[in-house]
């Protein structure tokens, strides 16, 4: 029997690439997102191209009270859950608006903790399962240009690390994914350095390999590990003076 992958945030460019990657490798796919009816053509596309099962599910990370039901009514419990959800707005706008601040934190951290707690407990009980969470290198050090987003991503990194530690003892694998720059809707208006920027398919390939090889923490494109090593090691008294 083929295994099922649940993708939370399946309408994102990275989510679509991940869905395609797993479908191409004969996994059944559950696409979960807000306004999920827009996913019907993605659903038909994956079914036709890869001859797999694919279903659509409504999911909003910030609608906390819906999470338990969301999980309980899933017709098939997926062997793999991948969270792709994230939200990034201009930091200046975010810090001036409490609503934007909370939205950033809830979409990148609280909402994901809420649903992954539920899924993690189920996986622990059944003594199997994989959870992959897409965080960001932005969570490795706060910078003035996006520290609300960055700190929420940092929280998510710490959460996944703790979850991994706990679920290891229940044979559940937890993977933390740390992309650098990726060309997607989120970054459409930014002028990203070409050499450092990945495509959504690169993220999908990395996630797929990371799950297969039971990695703990992976970067997308090898050099980001080294870039972040340098950035996290700059002494604070210098770092704080920089305009980053």
């Amino acid at each position, binding site marked *: 029997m083929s295994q099922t992958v649940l993708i939370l945030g399946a*309408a994102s*460019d990275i989510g*679509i690439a991940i869905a395609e990657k797993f479908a191409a490798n004969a996994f059944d796919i559950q696409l979960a997102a807000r*306004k999920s009816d*827009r996913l019907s*053509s*993605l659903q*038909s*596309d994956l079914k*036709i*191209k890869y001859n797999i099962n694919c279903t659509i599910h409504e999911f909003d990370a910030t609608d906390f009270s819906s999470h338990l039901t969301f999980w309980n009514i899933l017709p098939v419990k997926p062997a793999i859950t991948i969270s792709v959800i994230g939200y990034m707005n201009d930091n200046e706008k975010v810090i001036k608006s409490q609503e934007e601040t909370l939205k950033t934190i809830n979409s990148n951290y609280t909402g994901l903790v809420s649903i992954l707690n539920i899924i993690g407990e189920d996986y622990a009980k059944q003594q199997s399962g994989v959870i992959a969470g897409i965080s960001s290198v932005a969570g490795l050090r706060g910078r003035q240009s996006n520290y609300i987003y960055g700190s929420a991503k940092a929280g998510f990194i710490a959460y996944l690390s703790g979850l991994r530690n706990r679920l290891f003892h229940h044979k559940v694998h937890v993977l933390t994914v740390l992309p650098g720059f990726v060309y997607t*809707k989120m970054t*459409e*208006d*930014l*002028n990203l350095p070409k050499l450092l920027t990945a495509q959504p398919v690169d993220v999908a390939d990395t996630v797929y390999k990371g799950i297969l090889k039971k990695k703990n923490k992976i970067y997308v494109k090898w050099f980001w590990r080294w870039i972040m090593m340098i950035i996290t090691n700059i002494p604070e008294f210098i770092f704080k003076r920089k305009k980053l």
Partner: protein
Amino acid sequence: MKKDIGNWGNYPVIESDESAFTFTGEFQNYIKQTGAFIPRGNGRCYGDASLAINTISTLKYNRIISFDTENGILECEAGLTLDKILRVIVPKGWFLPVTPGTKFITVGGAVASDVHGKNHHIDGAFSAHVLEMDVINAQGEIITCSPEINNDLFWATCGGMGLTGMISRIKFDLKKVETSYIKQKQVKARNLDEIIRLFDEYKHYTYSVAWIDCLKKGSQFGRSILILGEHAKTEDLSNHKQNVPLKLPKEKKINFPFNLPSFVLNKWTIRIFNFFYYHKNFKKEINNVVSYEPFFYPLDAILHWNRGYGKKGFIQYQFVLPLESKQGLVEILNRISNKGLGSFLAVLKVFGKQDNLISFPMEGFTLAMDFPVRKGLFEFLDELDQIVLQYGGRLYMSKDARMKPEVLQSGYPHLPEFKRILEKYNPENKFRSLQSERLDLLVK
């Protein structure tokens, strides 16, 4: 994000604010938030048809909606490219009803240019196979059209270069095939008269096209190679190939990494031609069975070969002349060989009958060739335009970057009606390209 973009000919290159959309709703929001813009597929038109200050790429809007494997009907979103379609339909015994000389175009682009293939004389252009499509107009409304419903919109959209609205969904029929191979025949022609005679002699072949050497004068004027093909039947294949008759060719890619000085490619193409033509093994006629890939898409094997023409870019000049105007063809070929401006290999083909609203093909000879952009070229092409018009022909908008509006007007008799339909569906010129401005296609 603002960036410099150009199409396949790298001429012109302009700064454009290029967006993209994944879902229909995102495009409808884009319409509300943006001024005039033009839809952009894979940028394989040569000139300025999919260029504008604001462009919106369809490449992420690319899903298959349904595939009826019994009856061979495919329904998809407009940004899906032909190469991806082939990988899905060929293993199931289906092929594209019409394909241009590159598989890297979107279905939306195939409709908006109403592209033709080597089988035009038998199967017509792409529009002949479209059963139904959705077009999103300037108000964001989705209008379904077909030859039966909203047919004014349908015919103005086929070949309408994106000016009637965003083609979002397309349903079209496919061609049944037994194998993924082509039974190919290549015949050498000594001169223009012979190649024209050969086109007629072999007109029952589904696929036909000729490479013609534009530089030869005298008795060898118009020497060419006619390339013919039929979809191979299982029994045409070697035993080995019969095991997997619908095998997909390997995806191999060689990238052309940088711009070359513009003379290099010309020398190359001539050499390739000479190689085929004079190669000691090339008898008068060659018959063999090849995969569909080298037959339909010989140039796709080298990605970005257009960079071979250098930074200034090139113009692809394609016209069609009515069948009775062979003399026009002779005149144009003479001008080109005298001028020595050319590359010079050209593609010659005989179109079958077609009389749509604004599509390019009509019964006659079509010739396509590349000219690197340089001083004096545009004046020279203006002269050629006059010959084309004099003999009752016209130019292909999808390749065009420089013709004058009068040339379009004289070549396309239904242009006034096309403009009336634009007034109805695009009254405020929301869909607007560099080309539509240049060719005076704006609604007043």
